């Protein structure tokens, strides 16, 4: 038996005392830069779709109802809280909030939908200058993502067939 090392180990424990935090009864404040759920501000958003085009999780959908109205829908289900949407937004319309307790049974709780009024642009109708060639717009001009089934519409043949995602996760659309 190595009594000495056991004593030393006991000392380490005694010195540490109690460290467990009383979460969830009490939450620690999060640091200033914490990346929680992104919050969209419809008043600032110009509908450029930069966020939708550069979201790694494809969580932001865009649907052009007509020339003047564009719908932006943030789903939030797979959102990785990476903050890239907030990075590329030219209008600072997205803030990475301090919300982190976002687990829910009703997916509608975390969804955000923006109805945007678009004025007509002289060129394509939908323009956005990307920060670098790596943040390219994947779909220029008009966009018709599938809002009903909540998924991106790809230009390539890599397009989701109906049955495939519906069986994916059973979620309650609220």
């Amino acid at each position: 038996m190595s009594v000495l090392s056991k004593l030393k180990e006991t000392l380490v424990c005694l010195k540490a005392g109690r460290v467990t935090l009383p979460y969830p009864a009490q939450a620690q404040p999060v640091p200033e830069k914490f990346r929680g759920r992104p919050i969209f501000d419809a008043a600032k958003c110009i509908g450029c779709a930069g966020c939708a085009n550069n979201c790694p999780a494809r969580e932001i959908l865009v649907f052009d109802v007509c020339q003047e109205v564009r719908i932006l829908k943030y789903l939030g289900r797979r959102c990785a809280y990476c903050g890239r949407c907030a990075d590329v937004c030219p209008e600072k319309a997205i803030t990475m909030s301090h919300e982190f307790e976002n687990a829910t049974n009703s997916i509608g709780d975390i969804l955000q939908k923006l109805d945007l009024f678009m004025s007509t642009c002289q060129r394509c109708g939908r323009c956005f200058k990307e920060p670098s060639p790596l943040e390219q717009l994947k779909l220029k001009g008009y966009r018709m993502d599938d809002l009903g089934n909540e998924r991106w519409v790809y230009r390539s043949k890599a397009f989701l067939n109906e049955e495939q995602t519906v069986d994916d996760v059973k979620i309650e659309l609220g």
Partner: protein
Amino acid sequence: MTSRETLAQLKAKFGPAILRADLPADNRLLLYVEPFAIKPVCQYIFRDLDARYVISIGADDRPFSGQFLVAHDFAFDRDRILCSVLTHIPADKPKVDSISDVVPAANWAEREIRDMIGIEPVGHPYPKRLVLPDGWPDGSHPLRKDFAWNQVPEGFDEEREFKFDEPPEGCMVVPFGPFHPTLDEPAHFRLYVEGEMVRGCEYRGFMVHRGIEKLAESVLTYNEIPMMAERICGICGCVHNVAYAQAVESAIALRLPPRAEYIRTIMLEIERLQSHLLWVGLACHIVGFDTLFMQSWRIREPIMWIAEKISGNRKTYALCLIGGVRWDITPDIKTELRQLLDKLEAEWKPVVAAVLKDKNIQARTSGVGVADKTACKNTGLVGPVARAAGVDIDCRRDHPYAAYDRVDFDVITADGCDVWSRVVVRATEVFESIKIIRQCLDRMEPGPLQADIKDELPVGRLGLSSVEAPRGESHHFVITGENNRPRRWRVRAPTYQNLQGIPAMIKDQQLADMTISLGSIDPCFSCTDRLETIDLRSKAVKVWTQEELVKMVKARKA
């Protein structure tokens, strides 16, 4: 030897069989050879030049060159060269000579190429299905370019059963996993047991294969992939994030601003600190020594907090984009980080001092899970597993990236070849990480965080990058491509090689040593638990339901 001299030697030996050689940098060697020469060239590199096998990659290059591509990556650790031996295979005859009988470490990688791309490794000693699920039809290969990322192959058969090998004479089969109390990830070992002794095993894994490479090659874009790469692993995510970015940067020969390199180094070392402390705790937990498990995790927690302060999240740092980093280390954080390192060092020292003398842990782990130098060479074992067997390799020193060429540190080795030595190596490496971060903080110069990228990235370039993850070398291989995304991205996490060493490690050992042997290579850990409270006075236990928890949190917020 420099890469030029290595090349000259290879040319002298193989002459015209070497079709082309590229030396995109001093420390890279890309060798295009005739298909018939692939095996002798690899054998020569692996045995005569004593290079370390890293990984094999298959790619469907038909849309671009009309052929398939196979690459075997090797590392010349002493000479600081990463080398790729490539060969093109005709589209109508997807067959290549297997190198597994001369380079045993290529066993899995070649089977993966067969499964995913459909290139047959001719002469493979054990050409069994590895990656694809049981019900997947033969002849359907998901990483081919004509296979869409979301396609479900025709003829997928839910009922089809996997054919396991017959156990050797006199052995019983004990299934271990996919669900097992001490196995944190779903993998299945069929252990062949004779009494209490393990005599062999068959492995069936890849149950949580997520098709990440396919997504990157067909859906995501260059700057989106880092966020997904970091989700390859919950413990060493930043490693993959950096390794991917570096592979692309190496392909397009992009220089980073120095400050970004220092920040990458700091974040990687922060990650190593938390991973080593986590693992030492877990290893103790597996052998039933929960005191140290608790203490190690307690000491670890402040590291998570500082990572959260710097990056906005305690584990997913979302650090890199191509050409730089997203988060700066401000003067405030610098001060705080320095204080934290001092405290960490002061707290970790007595723990290590106590543990390294603890006869009980030593008795439980010495001579267990043995992998010696030969096993490391043949199976391509990396990281603490190799260093604990006296194999002096560490990508931070051997293939310097980020700012590692500007800091001093020691590569810790031991020679017990067993679990105990791995504990010693990882517990001691903590101090080296502290040293590295301190030097970075001292030497970091002000400057931009991101290189300017003015044009689209060039197409068809090859990039290799190795990053020393806490549990071993993580290797990424990239071919740049069209549409703002790579054509091919191959990730080799350290566990891919280390897991192949397990059958040898557990052979002729007690069944009870299986868990710690496996635990010693550090497969990942993730867990979700619900809340249980114990009243300290009455000892009454109350398990909280989900509703009650939600109520509590809502009441707190209101």
